[in-house]
């Protein structure tokens, strides 16, 4: 194990020199023990993501998207290969990589407000600034009136919005989001998409965003990773060149529709028989 890691390190050092990449996944694989056997969830993923990239990951259910994000966050570790962020191997989670989880993970003993402020207080930010940021995000997610509510008093979509605000308010360098807008209505979703784009441009952060909504992916991303299942792997990387000042109108442009169609085809291509042949 140790030896292998050393070898990986060398290879990676090489990769790192080759380009100033923000995130590097080198030969990443993940398998789970099930009973006595092994189940390979992800195999041989090689990805590089540049600084200030907005990377979207799409792929069939169960292809390993959540697993990948967990590994980027340092919450789980690859059983093969390694991950580098900022030229440092990922060995633990940290505030530099904020995450919005697929399930609701609000702290149930904190009010909406306290949930949002959690990371900021940890950083010992001045109270006035904390208040400002909280107010701004409460406004953005339209939950100002619910600032004193506990998570158990919120609907599914409301919880999800709070979780998004909590992660973003913390201003992480890398933002990892696992189907964050899944339980939102179209209107709120659109608003959140615009907000996220805006934020990303302003903060120059790097975002890795998992979604099933191809429209969403094309609208948001600078790069889309299309994944395949059994075992999970990256099928193709699509660069999205539709300009960076996107408004909702961009969705009606020819380029956009072409891209959406292309990715759709990539995804649906012989999927029917695929999932059953593990």
């Amino acid at each position, binding site marked *: 194990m140790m030896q292998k890691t050393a070898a990986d390190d060398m290879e990676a050092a090489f990769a790192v020199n080759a380009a100033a990449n923000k995130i590097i996944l080198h030969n990443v694989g993940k398998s789970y023990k099930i009973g006595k056997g092994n189940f390979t969830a992800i195999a041989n993923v090689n990805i590089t993501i540049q600084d200030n990239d907005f990377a979207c990951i799409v792929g069939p259910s169960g292809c390993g998207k959540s697993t990948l994000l967990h590994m980027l966050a*340092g*919450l789980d570790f690859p059983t093969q290969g390694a991950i580098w962020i900022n030229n440092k191997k990922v060995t633990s989670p940290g505030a530099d990589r904020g995450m919005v989880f697929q399930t609701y993970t*609000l702290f149930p003993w904190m009010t909406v407000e306290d949930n949002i402020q959690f*990371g900021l207080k*940890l950083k010992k930010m001045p109270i006035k600034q904390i208040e400002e940021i909280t107010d701004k995000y409460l406004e953005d997610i339209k939950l100002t009136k619910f600032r004193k509510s506990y998570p*158990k008093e919120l609907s599914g979509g409301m919880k999800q919005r709070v979780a998004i605000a909590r*992660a973003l308010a*913390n201003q992480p360098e890398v933002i990892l989001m696992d189907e964050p807008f899944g339980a939102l209505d179209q209107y709120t979703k659109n608003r959140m998409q615009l907000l996220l784009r805006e934020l990303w441009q302003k903060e120059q952060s790097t975002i890795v965003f998992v979604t099933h909504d191809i429209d969403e992916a094309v609208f948001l991303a600078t790069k889309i990773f299309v994944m395949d299942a059994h075992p999970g792997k990256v099928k193709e990387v699509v660069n999205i060149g539709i300009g960076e000042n996107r408004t909702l109108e961009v969705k009606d442009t020819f380029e956009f529709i072409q891209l959406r169609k292309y990715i759709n085809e990539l995804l649906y291509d012989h999927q029917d028989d695929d999932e059953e042949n593990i």
Partner: protein
Amino acid sequence: MKDDFRLRQSINKKTYMMITAVTFIIFLVFWYVVTAGGFVKAMFLPALTSVLKNLAEGTADGSLGSNTAISIYRITMGFAAAVALGVPIGILCGCFQKVEAVISPLCEFIRYMPVPAFVPLVMVWAGIGEMAKIIVVFIGTFFQMILMIADDARLVPEDLLSASYTLGTKRWSTIFKVLIPAMGPKIMLTLRVMIGWAWTYLVVAELVASNSGLGYTILKAQHFFKTDAIFSGILVIGFLGLITDRFFALLIKRMFPWDERSNP
């Protein structure tokens, strides 16, 4: 809602109280009838009236009050010490497998040991003063507490911890800001269980050179088989227990308004 078969439906608070009251009354009436009617010898079960008389006498001459006070003191001190040490150690045990490897097997080993067996040793180590009684209560609860609190720590959902790491908590801030608040309701439930346990050690603790306390009163009464005195001691302890338990239940409800299970 006649055909509502859902479980854990909360009933009206008044109804609850009434059912409880009726239960206790039936209990007392049964006791009264059985003893007053002479169906059971006083030796097996003292007459309700003579127990009440005993309690009244104790109240009148102040002995009941002072015995209760000293017993509460001993239990509280012993229990407080066990909490002050046991809860932090338990949390560490639940958080770090290396700590667990040191502490857990030792506690598993010790917690099975019958506390009365330690009484002579406690006297050797701690003398025969108040400290000895407090230590008996401590020994009886401490090791168990560590294991139960460690279990509680293990039951905190991993998701919450993951979320907190990504927001920037490190080892200790995760424990203080996330794990402990999340464990809150469970810790209180555990303490509620444990304080009852502490009381059951009262008689053992007051084996050690005491001439006061409810446990002592019971022991003394046992010597002369004064069943009425035994029963009044037992009843007073039971009553204190009931109050403590209700107090804890209320406290848990108040302390954790955010918890769906404490406040359904």
